[in-house]
């Protein structure tokens, strides 16, 4: 799957994040999530399986996307976060609102 490619799993849109979710990539991801929320019902899974690095801008895009989704009555979940991503989420306590799901299937279940 290409970077940023989106797929629909039973009404839930899955957005695949790039290898480095940083200052350069964050605005693109945020735009994509915003558009996905507008076009769908607001249920978005961000697949971090291919993401080896996230910085504070990347976290900003995820939190921004989560807010957009919730305002539209939906939610944003993250899946398959790697070690660095998990560590950053834990350090900032953002794992309390962005709970890492082991895989896309788990994240897309039970909305």
């Amino acid at each position, binding site marked *: 799957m290409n970077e940023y490619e989106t797929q629909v799993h039973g009404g839930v849109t899955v957005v695949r994040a790039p290898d480095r979710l940083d200052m350069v990539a964050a605005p693109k991801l945020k735009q994509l999530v915003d558009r996905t929320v507008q076009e769908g019902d607001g249920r978005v899974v961000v697949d971090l399986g291919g993401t080896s690095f996230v910085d504070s801008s990347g976290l900003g895009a995820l939190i921004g996307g989560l807010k957009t989704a919730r305002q539209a009555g939906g939610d944003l979940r993250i899946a398959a976060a790697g070690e660095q991503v998990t*560590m950053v989420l834990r350090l*900032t306590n953002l794992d309390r609102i962005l709970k890492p799901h082991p895989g896309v299937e788990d994240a897309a279940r039970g909305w």
Partner: protein
Amino acid sequence: MDTSAEAERLRALRDLAVLDAPPEDRFDRVVRLAQHVFDVPMVAVNLVDEDRVVPHAQVGLGSGDIPRSVAFCSTTVQGEGQLLVADAQVDQRFASNPLVQQDPHIRFYAGQPLRAAGQNVGTLCLLDSRPRDLTAEQSRMLRDLAQWVENELTLSQETVQAREVQRRLLPSRAPDVPGLDLAGRCVPARDVGGDFFDWQRVEGGLQVVVADVMGKGMTAAILAAGVRAVLRAGSLFHDLATSLERTATSMADDLDGAASFVTLFAGRLDPGSGDLEYVDAGHGLAVVLSPTGGARRLVSVGMPVGADPGESWPARTERLAPGEALLVVSDGVLDAFETAEEAVAEAERLARRGLRADQLVEAVLERTSHRLSPDDVTVVVVRREQD
């Protein structure tokens, strides 16, 4: 000359805030490189002001201004592309020019306009006292070098301003609090992140704050200024938890609009008893260090300010024994280590050396100096003196 177009051009130039600025190595490097690559005696990055041409970087020309009426570069900025004069003596536009007739006896000129905000604000130009020409490849290379200069010119504008804002946010000196030894430093990244630290006297002692606004450049710097101001004002009248909550409420819309958030540590220390009250909004990088070894990481369970509107940050308590130090850093420091645990272990080792607060700050900065992180680095130490 179209006066309104010229006014636009001058505004673009002034907005860069580079006119009559001190020489900068990053421009000197391009000029020296061009001199070598094109094998010409004279190269300049010239800024074309209203009635003068100002060399921002030059080699072989002298650093004085040139009246616009005689400058080749004045013609270049009024054109669309590269201006090439193979032999000025036989070019009727320039043959009678005093710079051709007299010293430095210019024969060859090649100037590439430098654009900023869509306007030709200056040139990168090559000059020689012998006639010559540029090959198509050399002409392309001059364009490439000019683009490099353009990047540097426009980067400086935002970066210089953001740096200035950030610099002004930082305390110029530590307050004198009997019983405490304080030091702090913030080393900004090239692109300027949103780090800042602050301290102020409040009821019950000294308040110290370390914060990191997500993002870079001017946006981050302005948000940092807002957080600092609101928190400072609130802290004079409220307890720590309330001050932070008010700050979060006040800044919520601004942070939402910029898709940003702030990790923040704030502590209030009673210098007499060593009692420390603190709140931590997703910062997680505060530790109490003992001079005899041992470190206690301060609990961080709260989310960053601006991440979730329902969040609150109840204050927690710690106590600094005489000789113990509170060390708070930004995540730029963490980048220098594999894990947070490793960073804490290193801090513990440093603390055992019995350093003063300023020495400990420098020692931590020293440990991060090898990293190639694009992040700001902030280090603050508050040490309770031995009785």
